[in-house]
């Protein structure tokens, strides 16, 4: 699971739903199903009523949608949300408000840096979506795209079935036969598909922070310095000489060693231990990780239960200021960013004194040995 500011991504969405008064949720889960169920249960502690449906490995979005169908029998409209999208504000309020106006199926549309991954929409004069063009190949488009949040008429399930699991086709049929409207989202948002999207999501969530929050149950040494919206959660311990520059999040039961420098947009999941003199910047650590003394973690994402040895450097820029490429599978993908660190999977172990070049991908469970100068 992706954990930002102490919460899995899904929890941010569920929180927004609850704010708008929606408490009955069906989650279609694939991998990480145990973790998700384990974390959320039936949703009782969040005041929600959560049901789960398990999808198969090869299932598409359309399959996933159809799996939930039975739970929505008898309802006129339902909300559909793609779980891996992050918005800066409550996207469901926005969508519902517009739905109240249109009284027909409504989709959130927004502008995306790359339109090839999304359904591109065409609008008519009355905010109606007249056409959806799914994932156009090669032909760059500048349209608004479907941003993964919808209020849909329950007939949509039938349309997905009829269109042989082609979701774009189902949307087009919805538009033609039942009406499909757009509400434009102009604020920050991101899909989380690629590893560096996590950093963008983290920024989006933290950007709106205005206040610093320090739990009464946290222990903060006398000469610790804060600026900006710093969030220190329960039972965290901050040692002498630490400098915190918000927005940043120090999770429950974290330990921050002497003289660490924690800079903007750092999110430390619970039970993260950070040794003496570590610098953290624009990074997300999902939790239960040890970061050894005198390391630098910048523009990086570290999974749960990882161990980062002392003196680990995540180099985060090229020498000539070009954008960083990351090898995913056998492809080299341009991140479009000039500052990119490392992406370390859950349970990875990185030995001491390792220097990770920009864009390094460390698979979950890997072991990198200590780097010694002797022997």
């Amino acid at each position, binding site marked *: 699971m992706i954990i930002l500011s102490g919460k899995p991504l899904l929890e941010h969405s569920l929180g927004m739903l609850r704010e*708008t*008064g929606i408490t009955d949720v069906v989650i279609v889960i694939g991998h990480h199903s145990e973790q998700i169920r384990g974390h959320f249960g039936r949703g009782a502690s969040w005041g929600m009523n959560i049901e789960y449906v398990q999808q198969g490995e090869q299932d598409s979005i359309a399959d996933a949608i159809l799996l939930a169908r039975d739970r929505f029998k008898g309802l006129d409209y339902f909300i559909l949300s793609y779980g891996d999208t992050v918005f800066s504000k409550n996207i469901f*309020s*926005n969508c*519902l*408000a*517009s739905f*109240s*106006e*249109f009284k027909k199926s*409504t989709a959130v549309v927004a*502008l*995306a*840096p790359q*339109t090839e991954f999304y359904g591109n*929409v*065409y*609008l*008519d*004069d009355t*905010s109606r979506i007249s056409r959806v063009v799914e994932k156009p190949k090669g032909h760059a*488009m*500048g*349209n*608004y*795209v479907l941003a993964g949040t919808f209020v849909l008429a329950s007939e949509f399930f039938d349309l997905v079935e009829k269109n042989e699991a082609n979701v774009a086709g189902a949307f087009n049929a919805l538009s033609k036969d039942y009406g499909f*409207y*757009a*509400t*434009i*989202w*102009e*604020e920050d948002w991101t899909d989380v598909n690629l590893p560096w999207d996590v950093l963008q999501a983290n920024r989006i969530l933290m950007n709106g922070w205005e206040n610093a929050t320090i739990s009464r149950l946290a222990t903060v040494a006398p000469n610790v310095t804060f600026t900006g919206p710093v969030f220190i959660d329960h039972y965290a311990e901050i040692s002498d000489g630490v400098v915190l520059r918000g927005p940043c999040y120090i999770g429950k039961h974290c330990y921050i060693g002497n003289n660490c420098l924690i800079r903007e947009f750092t999110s430390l999941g619970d039970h993260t231990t950070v040794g003496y003199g570590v610098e953290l910047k624009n990074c997300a650590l999902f939790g239960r990780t040890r970061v050894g003394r005198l390391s630098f973690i910048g523009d990086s994402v570290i999974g749960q239960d990882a161990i980062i040895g002392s003196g680990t450097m995540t180099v985060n820029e090229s020498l000539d200021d070009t954008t960083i490429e990351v090898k995913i599978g056998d492809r080299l993908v341009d991140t479009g960013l000039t500052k990119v660190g490392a992406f370390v999977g859950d349970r990875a172990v990185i030995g001491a004194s390792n220097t990770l070049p920009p864009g390094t991908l460390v698979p979950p469970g890997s072991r990198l040995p200590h780097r010694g100068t002797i022997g």
Partner: protein
Amino acid sequence: MCGISGVVGSSDVTKRLYNCMLNLEYRGYDSCGMAVLSNGQIDVRKNTGRVAEVFEKERFSEFRGRLGIAHSRWATHGHPSKINSHPHTNQNGNIALVHNGIIGNYLSLREELIAKGHVFKSETDTEVIPYLLDLYYEHYGDFERAVRATIERLEGTYAFAAIEAGHPDRLFCCRNKSPLIIGTGKDANYIASDIVAFIEYTKKVVYLNDNEYAIVSKDSFEVKSASTGKYQQKEIDTVSWDAEQARKGGYPHFLLKEIYEQPIALREALEIDDEKIKALAGMMDEADRTYLIGCGTTFYAALLAQYYFKAFAGEYAPAVNSDEFRNLCGVDERTLVIAISQSGETFDSLEALRYAKANGAKTAAIVNALGSSMTREVDFVIMQGAGPEKSVLSTKAMTSQIVVLTRTALWLAETRKSLPPDELEEIKAGLGALPDVVRSILDEKPGFIRRIANRVGRFKKWLYIGRSYHLPAALEAALKLKEVTYIPAEGMAGGFMKHGPISLVDEEMAVVVLMPPPENEELYRSTFNSVSEMKSRGGRMIGLHFDAQESVFDEQMILPKVHSVLAPIPQLVAGQLLAYFVAVLLKRDPDNPRGLAKSVTVE
């Protein structure tokens, strides 16, 4: 689009009723009215004009009562009048009614009622309803039955609300294909065409379906089927959003909404009756000289029109800033002054028109807001019909004004035979295709423009360059950026650059170049030369053009092809979006920039 509302309460409701009517004002208004029942009498006051104006004229502050209905109207065609405004009453005034929609069979109903001796006061379709209510009330002695019987006779779309003098504690309303919603409040109940009317008083709503009517009193309501009279069980919903969000209808800002309404606004402008355009062209033809006046964006619309009048009809009709008009221009009986105004209330333009009139000149205007001062003060007016423009920045009103002026220039050309007929037809065809062209820009380009905005939005100084037709567009695009982002931006003629301003250009300057289409070879070349000059000085060059990728530009927006004389218009739309996205990037307030008012009614 009209709005009806009604309030019934346990204490005086007139202020709330007035506010409901005011809240629906965003939909537009050319006339409005209220009917309030108190002490067994129905007091009806209505007139043409904006809600606040009519409030003054008809002294709405004097209304007192616990039951009332209200109506506000926005018509895109036709002349509003006091008699035609709502509420309408029956002959002896004990029934008052407001209506939204069209009664399809009103003529035959009218005839029938006239035959029975009823005398009508207005020409509206609405008036038949209170007369029918009267007829059936006489017949059945029960007002609810009368309502049902009336509904049975009506064909068409309607939502109406009625009050009857002998029923001081309830209002009767009905919905059939026009929207109507009930709101249940603490000590009053509301009805309206839109939740926006009463959302500040209550968020608890009951939705009526078609062919249902309701009897609403201060603490209860009954909804029944119009055909069977059977009671309908209704749920009370609580809305969780606020009025402001609702009015934007799916857009984060009115500015974006109105940019997106341009295809409709352009279509409306294209459908304005030819006779009206001809009449304006005729006035120009007759006059010895014509001035086109405006302020800000409308001045730039006038400036573009000046180029068109010269190019199509050989007519020199200078565009003049309204506020400088009397200092610059001599007027006499052989002069025509055409003012361009969205609000029709712009002080400087009104003053210029009055000066013109006082000196014997003929006056005309192209205006968006019906019932505004300008429409009453000029000799001839063309209403644009672009719909209400809420954002302080003018977008759809401007492009709509340009279409009206272009059509006028084409008519003048036709009259004077100054353009070869096939060229004339080509331009007309190009004009007719504009709504679709704008639509395609709005559909397919925002992503690109926003990316450009994100990359250059932090430049602290901007230049917008254009030549010929593209100059007014450059000036206007610069104005848009200035208005909404507060960044200094200057529009300039390409030719003017080398006479001084070129020294401003360095690596901190963003330069937006409005390139003409390549077919226009000479213009293209001369504009292009300016581009190279500025690039060599380090300026960040942003091209709005119609051709394939040009490496000289650091950023470019390639627009769909249009007829070369109309090329500034897609560039205007791109300029609007660019300003919008930069404003969003810099976290400005696109709808309410600091220090600006929508209509400048002061000097």
